[in-house]
């Protein structure tokens, strides 16, 4: 399992950070950072709501 951030696409809106139920993500300046990957429950909420195609949750 891994969470991939495509930094070239991320616009730093912080939607993914705010609505992650497990507080896995953090802003690092204007780009999102996967701060606590072990806490991720693969709910996909971040991937679904990212307006910029910038975050992918790989579950396999």
């Amino acid at each position, binding site marked *: 399992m891994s969470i*991939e951030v495509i930094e*070239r*696409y991320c*616009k*730093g*809106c*912080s*939607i993914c950070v*705010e*609505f992650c139920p497990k507080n896995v993500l953090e802003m690092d300046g204007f780009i999102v950072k996967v701060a606590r990957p072990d806490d991720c429950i693969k709910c996909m*909420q971040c*991937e*679904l*709501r*990212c*307006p*910029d*195609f*910038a975050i*992918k*949750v*790989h*579950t*396999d």
Partner: protein
Amino acid sequence: MAYDYEKSLRPGKLPHIWCPGCGHGIVMKGLLRAMDTCGLEKNNTALVSGIGCASRLPGYVDMCTLHTAHGRAAAFATGVKMARPEMNVIVMGGDGDGTAIGGNHFIHACRRNIDMTYVIMNNFIYGMTGGQFSPCTPTGDKASTTPYGNPDPTFDISKLAIGAGATFVARTTAFHATQIDKLIAEGIKHKGMAIIEVLDDCPTTYGRRNKFRSVVDMMKRLKDMAVPVTAAGKMTAEQLEGKILTGVLYKEDKPEYCEQYAKVIARAQGVK
């Protein structure tokens, strides 16, 4: 599994032009999943739009696309559908495009019950041109052209569509990402005019002027205002104050326009 969106996009188009946190990107992802669910392909699908930030959407998608004049998407889409009734025709546009300059095309496409899907991204504002008020700007809210508050009453797009004759009408918000593709897919499968209103956010020209300082504030507002139509029956008028119903709001079976038109052609040609 991460969803592979890029297989349905024209290569090299990302990052897109929309502002940070603009909900149009969330709607675009919902559309791509819905088209996938319904097995829509390049050679049998046309995406049609007018002008506006929302109307930029088809340009990213690897399908047949038609970017037309402001407000005219429904008219062009009607032409496409009548010339090629076997195609899936989907209109993608904004509240300004669809209910101000294009309001007439919108209601008449609904009235005809032509078999297409119209996804209207209602961000309550003219985003592209700098935040002028639209017919969907809530009364009292600020726009660049209503700095002291908007005196106009507001269109309820879904009610307008039902009243005008659309036979499938549904609503959701940019926050409710999985409902976007479910409702668009239902709309695509419906035979007749399907309107899917997505309450959307324009943090840049609407949010900032109206106390939603951040993208997250705007998203929370969309989250809070939505009440599933299935839950509304058990709520009091007080609890429903300021809320907006989401889900499938209306559905009926009625004769579809292209089929009716084909009958007229057959009659004119003397075919019994």
